[in-house]
């Protein structure tokens, strides 16, 4: 349709002094950027197709490649930034809603980076994790008001079902369909090896993965895909997905081309048909409806599984959380606005929701003020990027964290944010067999294990520095945090002092 006003975003810089025409780049690019020109006797590139996923760069044996952002610019305009203009062009061309994937990349404050962690000096000793036990085990679930003992002094009280984690990090919900079977396998195996949980997302659970059930959180979302009694019983816990940080108030849409045989079986929908998760659950239009779903799920699993309710961090998240805590849920999962996704409308992803740090601070404080903090555990996700983010989240009051993007990065994702195309060159966000096999679960599992092991070491180091040798003593321990460059209001919400105070 007329002139294409979009100049390619990236340039493929090929060092011909180094290029040996091995054509690995060509073979590995699902976007068909690279090709060999027999007449020129050299590699050529169609840059308009490049998404900067870095696959070719990573595999080039002579390091002859790099991908750079084009420096071709429109006339400078603070109000009309180049991206804004390009988006207008794109929409003028397609007439469609702009789609993006992974987390909100815009320049909003990252509060994790505006909080500093404490350490012991003189008046109390720091603890060396190499010499002393440094405990990171956590339990998620309702806590009893008190513990009853019999005459012999043995415990009489029967606890509500709990999730026991060896470390306060779980893999967040990513559905089979949005990510590949091999990615799922790796998450399941790593979670099992490390004594934590992964989350099926709303894609159902492949029978082959039932063996990892003790470390699986099965999700029930508005589409109810793949939900049946065995599925509910297969997991360690059930998560009701009310919302997602990347697209609060929006449903999900897995295009038919990603619904192959296996996916269709797992999701229990016809092959090739679009999988549409409605924005709301059509049986939950109010908090009391949620309560009913929670208890029907508990009934269905004879009260053997804790129920998680996952919501997006939105403006009055504290009040919503309080409602959920009173609805019978055992755990609340809050997803910040930087959370990743396989596909979301760009406008939603970039403009809806609030940062997880503020949501967490508000929710934890509110539940304590209402004296119901023990009735529910808090799990937070939505861009936990490092061990220090985890430590800060726990100090703010979280029981555990969900990591999604970080986990995908560990297995090769380069955040090119083109998941929606289904042509993931790293074999993660795709169902194309030739691409899926690029992710060898043996390697991916090990990498995930390594990531969690490394983070846990760092968490232990930081705990030791604070003179804390068990993670529960860090939970909600906000004195261990100080703000840096934060306004009085932000400090008030986070309930931390400013550095120097």
């Amino acid at each position: 349709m007329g002139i294409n006003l979009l100049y390619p975003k990236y340039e493929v810089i090929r060092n011909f002094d180094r290029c040996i025409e091995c054509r690995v780049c060509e073979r590995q690019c699902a976007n068909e950027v690279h090709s060999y020109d027999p007449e020129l006797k050299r590699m050529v590139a169609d840059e308009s197709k490049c998404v900067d996923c870095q696959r070719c760069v990573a595999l080039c044996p002579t390091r002859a490649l790099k991908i750079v952002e084009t420096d071709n610019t429109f006339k400078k305009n603070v109000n009309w930034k180049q991206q804004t203009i390009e988006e207008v062009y794109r929409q003028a061309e397609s007439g469609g809603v702009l789609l993006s994937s992974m987390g909100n990349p815009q320049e909003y404050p990252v509060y994790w980076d505006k909080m500093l962690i404490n350490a012991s000096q003189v008046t109390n000793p720091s603890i060396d994790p190499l010499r002393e036990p440094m405990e990171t085990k956590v339990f998620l679930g309702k806590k009893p008001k008190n513990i009853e003992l019999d005459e012999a002094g043995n415990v009489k009280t029967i606890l509500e079902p709990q999730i026991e984690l060896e470390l306060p990090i779980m893999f967040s919900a990513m559905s089979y369909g949005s990510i590949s079977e091999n990615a799922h396998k790796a998450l399941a195996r790593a979670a099992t090896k490390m004594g934590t949980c992964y989350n099926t997302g709303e894609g159902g659970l492949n029978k082959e993965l039932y063996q990892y059930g003790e470390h699986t959180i099965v999700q029930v979302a508005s589409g109810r895909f793949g939900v049946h009694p065995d599925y509910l019983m297969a997991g360690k816990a059930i998560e009701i997905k009310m919302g997602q940080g990347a697209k609060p108030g929006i449903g999900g849409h897995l295009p038919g081309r990603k619904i192959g045989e296996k996916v269709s079986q797992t999701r229990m929908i016809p092959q090739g048909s679009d999988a549409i998760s409605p924005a709301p659950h059509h049986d939950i239009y109010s908090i009391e409806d949620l309560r009913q779903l929670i208890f029907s799920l508990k009934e269905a699993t004879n009260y053997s599984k804790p129920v998680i309710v996952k919501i997006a961090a939105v403006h009055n998240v504290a009040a919503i959380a309080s409602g959920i805590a009173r609805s019978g849920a055992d755990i609340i999962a809050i997803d910040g606005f930087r959370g990743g996704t396989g596909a979301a409308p760009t406008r939603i992803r970039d403009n809806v929701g609030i940062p997880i740090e503020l949501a967490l601070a508000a929710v934890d404080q509110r539940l304590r003020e209402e004296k119901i903090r023990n009735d529910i555990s808090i799990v937070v996700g939505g861009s936990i990027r490092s061990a220090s983010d985890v430590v800060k989240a726990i100090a703010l009051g979280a029981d555990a964290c969900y990591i999604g993007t970080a986990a995908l990065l560990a297995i090769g994702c380069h955040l090119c944010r083109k998941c929606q195309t289904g042509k993931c060159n790293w074999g993660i966000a795709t169902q194309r067999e030739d691409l899926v096999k690029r992710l060898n679960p043996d390697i991916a599992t090990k990498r995930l294990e390594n990531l969690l092991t490394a983070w846990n070491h760092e968490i232990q180091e930081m705990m030791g520095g604070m003179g804390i040798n068990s993670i529960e003593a860090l939970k909600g321990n906000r004195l261990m945090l100080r703000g840096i460059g934060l306004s009085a209001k932000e400090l008030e919400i986070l309930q931390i002092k400013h550095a120097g105070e």
Partner: protein
Amino acid sequence: MLREGEIRIPSGCAISGIIDRKGRRCLNGQKIVDSIAIMHDRSNGLGGGFAGYGIYPEFADLYAFHIFYDTMEAKEACERYLDRYFEVVSYGIIPTKSVESIQDSPMIMRYFVNPLLTKAKTIGKVPIDEETFVVETVFYINSNIDGAYIFSNGKNMGIFKAVGFPEDVGEFYRLNEYDGYSWTAHGRYPTNTPGWWGGAHPFGLLDYSIVHNGEISSYDANRRYIEMFDYKCTLLTDTEAITYIIDFLNRKNGLSFEDISKIIAAPFWSELEHMDPAEAKKIKTFRNAFSSLLITGPFSIICGFTDGIMALNDRLKLRSMVVGEKDDIVYLASEEAAIRAVCQDLDYIRAPKGGEPIIVRVEREEK
């Protein structure tokens, strides 16, 4: 300069405790003073104090309120409040002796009182038990009547504390005039100046009194948890928080001091493997249900209570503490010297393991 309650002040300390297993009032106040005095260098003159048990036999059934007043207005307001809800059986100034090193003393009064629950009911606090009523009164007065501070409120026990070195504080309060069956003492080394009288230790609630040496790293986790149960941490001191935790677990949850020690100085997960299953299950349940009451960081505490005493170290034993015994009298202190100072020929003396509670309960012979 901010005082306790306005800022959190880390501090090191000396602690000491003595108890007679038979519950005889054979321990003169001077004995505990001599014990703590030897650890002079463990405090810096910014706080010292004592708790004595069995010292008010004549008023054994009445709550003994020890109160600091900064002003007459405070005193009047407070006494008006007390008159309204309590039968004040006896009261008066706590006798002191002027000691040069102890300055700016507030007015220090003592009241032996009986809660008038009927009155309490009438102001809508129904149903309520006596102790809860007393606790709420203390919280109310300490946080609402400016200049009045109740620092001791148990039965047949009393806390005596001030800004100064403990031995001077003992002399100031003329402790050689009291006899009891159990004493604890504290010498404080806050990292700021000047201490505030109310901020000195022991810290008491009902007949629980705590002396503590250490700086707990779990403080805010513990505080924010315990505050969900109507405790107000106004001083921001470890001792205050620990006292509330013990009150919560012992008085409100009815857990024994043995079990309390398994919660606040819980065994490591790795130790559970070698335990008998029932015990392991118990600890796992405790650590799950009361996870936020685990106290980490260095501490050694001596908790006095009616007819008993508990001493406990953090589970890594990051603070010193020794226990010794001679003829039914048990001695506890930060340093062996503090015990030797008052008893040379001990039957035994040893350092308890981290997390190992030393609990002594009085067993009186029938008269």
